[in-house]
């Protein structure tokens, strides 16, 4: 069986990457490329509502329905509400589903409470204008009204938040309303950081947080304690006094599978913990079975965040380890791991190497705006085109990225070199293909061959262990 490649996510106009016109060829167009659908690998994958038979309005329908069980009585007509969002949602399936959920949450608050002072506060990772770009691109500035939609960054003015572990700091503009609504998504994304522990709470310690808090997360609390930063803030009296409810775009590797909403974020978090381990666990474990490959980055995001089958490249770089297994302290890639590389190599014997299956990386299209030299230093990397190399060179977070990478004239010459140097014909493309994964025929064969065994191992052994490690009884959770 040979499927045609899936059409990849389109390049996006952004100051963090090259202009879309400079992405002259996508990896999916290479000869010998095919695709494998997730539902084919794992027939128990949940059905997607988007992409699917309906357009993005299906997200509105599901959001309205999910919000029916949410109490909004605390919001008065004369009060103010901040809908808190994050850049990450806009990277999912082109961003339209997340933007539609945000619009719908806004409309439902207005319809049900009479409140008209509803603002959008959209946080970022390390690209401080990224959500400003999305706000404009999806017309959210016009939709929310003049001056009501705002991108916020961790270096903006802050406020102290007293927590049970001491003072942490939030972004002032996130909390400058009577009520806040947490509008996020359940895509697991940075499993290497949050380890699927309190995933739903994470933005309180990250995209809604100031630098002091984010530094606490990535430097002070450890690889498995890090996400407690987020819980400490969310559990604070200050945040609890403002929190109204949460609405989440419910994701799985196949796409959007629904919308979840709740006044109780912890209850939503428990549902999401189970679903994340279950839906992403199999594909992530399967990608760990890849024995050798050329990884092609081909998506409008920084290097670690490009997607294949719902899994980001940073997680593939650590796929030789089980990222969900909390008995394992350090994934092959996470910032704590990176910190523990001395000048002459890892400071501990136990630090696992970056996934040795990645024989070469071809950076066909990916952005700067995230420190990525760790990857080019450890994985032989070819960057396609001088313009893209220049983007990395101008980026204050990537001054050394090109010190470890070579420039290829175009994608074809990069692939020719990568094949010759690595000796493998297995290719995996991180291009955001929806519902499946673009790969070479040889890798498609390997994935199909290994999928059933991995599925059995996850269902029978790994998933119950992952849940137990997170305080969830597998018998109750999985029936």
């Amino acid at each position: 069986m040979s499927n045609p490649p899936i059409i990849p996510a389109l390049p996006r106009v952004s100051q963090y990457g090259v202009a879309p016109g400079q992405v002259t060829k996508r990896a999916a167009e290479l000869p010998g490329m095919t695709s494998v659908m997730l539902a084919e690998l794992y027939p128990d994958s949940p059905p997607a509502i988007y992409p699917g038979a309906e357009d993005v309005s299906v997200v509105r329908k599901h959001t309205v329905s999910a919000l029916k069980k949410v109490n909004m009585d605390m919001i008065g007509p004369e009060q103010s509400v901040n809908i808190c969002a994050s850049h990450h949602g806009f990277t999912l399936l082109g961003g339209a589903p997340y933007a539609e959920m945000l619009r719908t949450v806004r409309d439902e608050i207005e319809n049900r409470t009479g409140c008209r002072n509803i603002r959008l506060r959209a946080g970022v990772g390390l690209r401080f204008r990224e959500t400003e770009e999305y706000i404009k691109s999806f017309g959210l500035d016009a939709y929310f009204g003049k001056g009501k939609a705002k991108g916020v960054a961790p270096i903006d003015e802050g406020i102290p938040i007293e927590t049970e572990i001491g003072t942490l700091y939030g972004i002032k503009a996130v909390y400058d309303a009577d009520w806040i609504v947490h509008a996020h998504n359940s895509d697991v994304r940075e499993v290497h950081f949050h380890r699927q522990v309190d995933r739903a709470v994470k933005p309180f310690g990250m995209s809604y947080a100031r630098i002091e808090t984010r530094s606490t997360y990535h430097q002070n609390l450890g690889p498995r304690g890090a996400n407690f930063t987020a819980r400490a803030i969310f559990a604070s009296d200050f945040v609890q006094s403002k929190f109204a409810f949460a609405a989440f775009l419910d994701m799985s590797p196949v796409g959007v599978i629904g919308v979840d909403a709740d006044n109780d974020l912890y209850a939503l978090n428990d549902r999401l913990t189970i679903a994340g381990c279950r839906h992403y666990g199999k594909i992530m474990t399967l990608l760990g079975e890849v024995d050798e490959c050329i990884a092609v980055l081909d998506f409008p995001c920084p290097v670690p965040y490009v997607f294949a089958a719902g899994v980001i490249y940073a997680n593939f770089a650590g796929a030789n380890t089980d990222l969900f297994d909390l008995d394992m302290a350090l994934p092959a890639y996470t910032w704590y791991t990176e910190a523990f590389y001395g000048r002459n190599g890892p400071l501990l014997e136990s630090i696992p190497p970056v996934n040795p299956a990645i024989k070469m990386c071809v950076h066909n299209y990916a952005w700067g705006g995230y420190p990525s030299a760790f990857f080019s230093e450890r994985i032989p990397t070819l960057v396609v085109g001088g313009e893209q190399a220049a983007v990395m060179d101008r980026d204050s977070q990537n001054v050394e990225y090109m010190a470890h990478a070579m420039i290829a004239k175009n994608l074809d010459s990069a692939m020719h070199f990568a094949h010759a140097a690595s000796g493998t014909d297995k290719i995996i493309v991180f291009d955001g293909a929806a519902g499946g994964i673009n790969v070479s025929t040889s890798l498609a064969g390997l994935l199909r061959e290994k999928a059933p065994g991995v599925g059995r191992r996850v269902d029978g052994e790994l998933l119950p262990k992952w849940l137990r490690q997170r305080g969830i009884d597998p018998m109750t959770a999985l029936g």
Partner: protein
Amino acid sequence: MKTITLKARINSARCIGCGNCAKMCPTLAIFMKGKKAVVDEGRCLACANCHQRCPVEAVTLEKLDKPFTVRAVTRDFEREAVEAMCIKAGFNPGQILCYCTATRAEEVAAAIIQGAETPEEISFRTGLRMGCSVECIQPALRMLEAAGITPTPPEGGWQWYGRTPVLQEISQEVKSKYNHRGFYFDSDIALFAEVVKSERR
């Protein structure tokens, strides 16, 4: 250590004088003169905060004719003190504190021993925080604390507000309350101790 290839330039005609750039500059390279922001070129290490947050996009980053490198080098007679300060702060001297510039703990310690008394001065001397400017403020504050220095945040600025908790300070009560949810506090404390103890650099 960071190699500087760019400099911030402010378009005075466009500048509205909000002062945000000055409030978020990690090396205090921007000051207000009248109602206009001005860059002290000798202190700008091109972190790009001003460029990224100016509300009217009045800041550009221009390529330097002659790139230069900032770094603090440990002199032989400082080696013992550098090691001691890093370990007291809970770091292996060889570990990376800044993920953007790969600035290591020993370099920050050397800068402090050589006279840096604030996070801003550490940044200026080592390049720490000169990438994203987000993730490494706490290590800078922890290192200063280990040196017996309590800096105060720049007046009226948003560069930083304060030191935050470290793992070892989390109470037994909090740990007991949350351990079962997957927060492996004690195991991570043991991991940190192992890294600090490692003789590898």
